């Protein structure tokens, strides 16, 4: 953060993102500004706003200004515009985010219950989950993935920022049960060591 007046490009990027109703990718900002290279300006702006009441953040490759998280208590309104999700919807969302792309059958096999039709609809309607095509297996089931809005909403720069995703992956908890079972049985066959995943840690 400096006291220097910003250059014209930084000002233009600042004004564009302030005025934009939706988060914008660097490419979209660049296109809007006649093709200028805006990467450096975005970085400079993010640095300038660091520590202020408003911040410039990148979420899923798209940039937007938002209020600083530590000021949440001042800004929370009586009427929350955030949708309250059912527990089922919350779990389905997490499964889609950590396993994407996933089919409905895969979601159900993790949750152990059928997923009510409305559950995925709520997430699709919220714009957090999208249909990402079909899996090329018999029956060609529809597969689901998260959206850029999902990342914006939950303050994630990318899916790599999903809380604990690295640990979950390392522990094999994102692998299907069958795979984990096979490797556990293998370990058991290899030696006398207990076959549970402790031994793998």
């Amino acid at each position, binding site marked *: 953060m400096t006291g220097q007046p910003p250059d014209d490009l930084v000002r233009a990027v600042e004004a564009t993102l302030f005025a934009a109703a939706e988060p914008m990718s660097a490419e979209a900002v660049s296109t809007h500004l006649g093709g200028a290279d805006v990467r450096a300006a975005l970085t400079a702006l993010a640095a300038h706003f660091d520590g202020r009441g408003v911040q410039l953040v990148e979420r899923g490759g798209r940039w937007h200004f938002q209020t600083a998280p530590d000021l*949440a208590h001042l800004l929370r309104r009586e009427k929350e515009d955030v949708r309250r999700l059912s527990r089922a919807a*919350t*779990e389905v969302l997490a499964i889609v985010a*950590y396993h994407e792309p996933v089919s409905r059958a895969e979601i159900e096999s993790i949750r152990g219950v059928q997923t009510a039709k409305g559950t995925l609809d709520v997430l699709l309607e919220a714009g957090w989950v999208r249909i990402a095509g079909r899996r090329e297996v018999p029956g060609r089931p529809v597969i689901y993935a998260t959206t850029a809005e999902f990342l914006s909403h939950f*303050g994630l720069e990318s899916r790599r920022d999903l809380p604990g995703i690295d640990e979950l992956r390392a522990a094999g908890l994102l692998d299907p049960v069958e795979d984990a079972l096979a490797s556990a049985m293998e370990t058991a066959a290899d030696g006398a060591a207990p076959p*549970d995943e402790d031994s793998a840690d």
Partner: protein
Amino acid sequence: MSELIDGPAITLDDDWQGVGMAAPHDAALYLELDGWEGPLDLLLDLARRQKVDLRTISILELVDQYLTYIERAAALRLELAADYLVMAAWLAYLKSALLLPREEQPDPSPEELALRLHLRLQRLAAMRDAAARLMGRDRLGRDVFPRGAPEGLRVDRKHSWQCDMFGLIQAYGQVKARTAPVVHMVRDRMVMTLESALTRVSSLLGVNLDWMELRDFLPPHADPRLKRSALASSFVAALELARLGKAELRQEETFGPLMLKGITA
């Protein structure tokens, strides 16, 4: 495997009624049962109440707790969804198999079945934790806010039309070519008219006094298409001349050569 199943046993109170309930009352049990999303959910909750790391949970303990729960609900004649009962039956089977001497155990081994259940519980638990952590993040519109009144960006599209000189004059040329007056020409077909056949046949009859075949009246070296027309016209001319009494016709056999001879008056 043995550690997984027999592993650190968690001592439970005999009169365990479910953690987190003020009064160990059976009515409360019913209410809780209502709150679970299926048997796996209930199992996970029971497993968590063992208050140990899920990785070291005792499956046998868990089976007992589940069966106890279901028995109590049954004793109270509470309506249980079928899948809870299916799970109970399966767990009862698993328990009995686990208690068998190792050599008598069926295939797939109860250890494998237990491990499978264990893995499923771990995965569900992982996702449940992940969901809670996700929901606890600084969420846009709840903890952090976008600009309240963005002006919005507008893009006005303007077409820039493109056309070059060649395209322009070519288009004009084509309009002119297309709308120029058109003369329709019918191609000449090679025919011998009846009139010319009559003239030709009667003049040839006048010269020859002997019988002649009709084909000999045709113009020699003519185009095949003209020949066909000439033959047809000459035949009609011959019939006409016979009708007028100016010629005689003779044919020895069907499709045989048609012979023609002039009648001199």
